């Protein structure tokens, strides 16, 4: 028996805490701080980046606390989970019960927003005219006899009491949509060389890139020439579940849909074919590949590696450095050479020019070919997320722009006359209704007198 009481008490404490606005706000604060940390601290970088950016103790702290990947940390997911659970408990414990507060007698003088109107009318007539006054102004009037006193309750925007409930519901729908993606969705990236056909994992789709085109326009600005990208476009043939080939064009902001999976233009680059020789003898194993930026060749029987780091569209022949113009006027590649994992040199090699790598090895960037970086994503949760966002917005607008208010009215005989006592309550306190209440009370006597 005692154990049951203890459990009940514990449950009561849990519900009280979880439904408390300040608890929700505390969770919001933690959520906000973690989010800002993720904004300030560069995410998902190599540890060396943090050590080069911050003082060593700070970098260590970032890595130890997982702040380099804060949005996918247990703390971040956990805080969102806590917010959703708090929101659910608060909805059932506070929001739903508060939707339709019971009609009950109040001590009018004890409410901060109250007024009294003296009238020469008898109580019954005054009561009828007060009811009529509020009905004509769109208030929903209800009468109850409570403790032997006839009360009039006038409500406005009663329906708007559901605003917070709707906003909370929006959050739950968004969470459901996101969960559906986690459970059933997938996404990925693929880089397709011109002329290459790739199969997209987890789909029955194959995609062939016929051509990738980009347009970059040099524009004179106050700061000098700016090479402004204007268009990126991939011309592809896709084969979907039906086995039929379709020609399609993928542009930024214009994805294509293949069997529910969307394909987006995400990036582009230059694949380069290198000819590698050892004392003038071609190494065919290494020379047959087309490398993309970041790819590495390991020289046989050595600890030496060559990385194709970057493509330079235009080399300034005077300085031998890469020029600002990204168009392929006089292209070259940046090569990094490593020995035993340690960088030993970097060079900018024009296309067609040989570079001596030492040990008898030479490398020639022979020709380049464009590739298109495509993202794909299957997200069956998107409609729900969209609906949830709209429901959330509707809930916010209802909560902010409609003020549910209740007037408690009683008419008392005062000698030959009557006194109409009124008090107002709203879901947002009293100050916000003060001006409207004053207007109402200002108009009420005129209405009472006009009827006489």
């Amino acid at each position: 028996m005692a154990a049951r009481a203890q459990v009940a008490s514990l449950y009561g404490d849990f519900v009280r805490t979880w439904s408390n606005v300040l608890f929700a706000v505390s969770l919001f604060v933690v959520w906000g701080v973690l989010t800002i940390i993720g904004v300030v601290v560069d995410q998902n970088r190599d540890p060396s980046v943090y050590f080069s950016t911050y003082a060593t103790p700070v970098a260590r702290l970032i890595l130890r606390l997982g702040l380099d990947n804060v949005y996918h940390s247990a703390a971040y997911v956990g805080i969102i989970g806590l917010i959703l659970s708090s929101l659910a408990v608060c909805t059932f414990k506070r929001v739903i019960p508060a939707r339709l507060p019971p009609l009950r007698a109040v001590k009018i003088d004890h409410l901060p927003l109250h007024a009294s109107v003296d009238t020469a009318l008898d109580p019954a007539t005054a009561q009828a005219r007060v009811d009529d006054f509020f009905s004509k102004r769109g208030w929903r009037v209800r009468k109850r006899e409570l403790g032997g006193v006839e009360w009039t309750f006038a409500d406005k925007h009663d329906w708007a009491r559901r605003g917070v409930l709707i906003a909370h519901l929006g959050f739950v729908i968004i969470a459901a949509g996101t969960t559906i993606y986690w459970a059933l969705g997938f996404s990925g990236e693929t880089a397709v060389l011109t002329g290459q056909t790739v199969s997209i994992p987890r789909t029955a789709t194959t995609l062939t890139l016929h051509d990738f085109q980009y347009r970059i326009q040099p524009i004179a600005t106050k700061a000098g020439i700016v090479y402004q990208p204007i268009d990126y476009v991939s011309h592809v043939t896709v084969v979907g579940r039906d086995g039929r080939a379709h020609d399609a064009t993928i542009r930024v902001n214009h994805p294509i849909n293949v069997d529910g999976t969307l394909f987006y233009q995400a990036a582009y680059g230059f694949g380069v074919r290198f000819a590698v020789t050892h004392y003038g003898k071609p190494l065919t194993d290494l020379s047959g590949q087309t490398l993309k930026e970041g790819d590495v060749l390991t020289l046989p029987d050595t600890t030496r590696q060559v990385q194709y780091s970057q493509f330079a569209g235009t080399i300034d022949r005077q300085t031998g450095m890469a020029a600002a113009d990204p168009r392929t006027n006089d292209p070259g590649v940046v090569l990094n050479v490593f020995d035993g994992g340690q960088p030993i040199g970097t060079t900018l090699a024009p296309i067609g020019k040989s570079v001596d790598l030492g040990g008898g090895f030479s490398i020639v960037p022979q020709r380049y070919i464009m590739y298109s970086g495509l993202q794909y994503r299957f997200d069956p949760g998107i409609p729900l997320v969209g609906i949830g966002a709209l429901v959330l917005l509707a809930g916010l607008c209802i909560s902010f722009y409609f003020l549910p208010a209740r007037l408690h009215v009683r008419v008392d005989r005062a000698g030959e006359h009557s006194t109409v006592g009124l008090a107002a309550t709203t879901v947002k306190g009293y100050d916000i209704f003060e001006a409207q209440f004053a207007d109402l009370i200002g108009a009420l006597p005129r209405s009472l007198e006009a009827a006489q």
Partner: protein
Amino acid sequence: MNHAMPLDQVLMVIALSTYVIGSLVLVMYFFSREEWQRNLGAPLVIAGCVAQFAQLVARYELTGVWPLLNLYGSLSFFSAMSVLIFILFAFRYRLWFAGGFVVAIAALFLAYGLTWNEGTLPAVPSLQSYWAKIHVPIVVSSYAAFTVAAVLSALYLLKYYFDRSFQARLEPAAALATPTSITTSSQMTIQSAVQIRVRRDTPAIEAAAESGNIVARWLSTLPALAQIDVLIYRVVAVGLPLLTVGIITGAWWAKEAWGAYWQWDPKETAALALWIFYAIYMHLHTRNAWRGVRSAWLGVWGLPLMLFVYLGVNIVIGNGSQHSYKL
């Protein structure tokens, strides 16, 4: 050789000039409450706002590029919306006394925006979307609303802390005077009398004003603290739904451009942090203990956070953000 200034720059000069003069006149009105100053300052500010929107339209017409795609155009729109939101509230709630500060901030950001005018660049591929005409103005408008809320919050705190200061100087008996009083309306007639309980939430200022203190007399012309608190709430209630719509439209645009509606990009997560901040404000404002001075402090702190989200992420952090407007 034609040295004529382009129409958009002429309009920009008009806007900036009228803002500077209008804000000075309205600051004078803030201190003196001379009606002529309001009657002069308000039309100047309205004219500046009209000129600024006309400038944005003219720039669009002249260049064919949506003007809000760079910081110059965005800051120009931000200052125009700050002034417009203020004007709407000023007409509805008689807020002209605060106009000088809002318009001064708007003029400051407009002038700062001019330093980012690098000429006209066509939009990069990711910005070539109809969403640019929906998402950007909505988000920038929400920032403008939060700016107006911050100015009102600062005025709240000014009056609140002066009241506390006067209270400390008053005799204990006077300081403990009831904060509310009964007044009888002027509509009393033989047949009906009205009694409304009204709030006097700065009794020390009222007392000091009655005893002839000039600062207190001036402060007593400001609306009651409770009224300012409600005004701040109403402005935030404009900004937060705008920010919500902005985040939603941004997510929709991101889905079209980058394949995912949420990419944890620094700009979008910073906007989320701002949303969380004002959601906290709204939640706390449901509690009596948090309305008033605590809410006003939140309103003031919202400004630096908003500026960090709006400018800091782009200018200071910037690295790796999809909002750096590269593919």
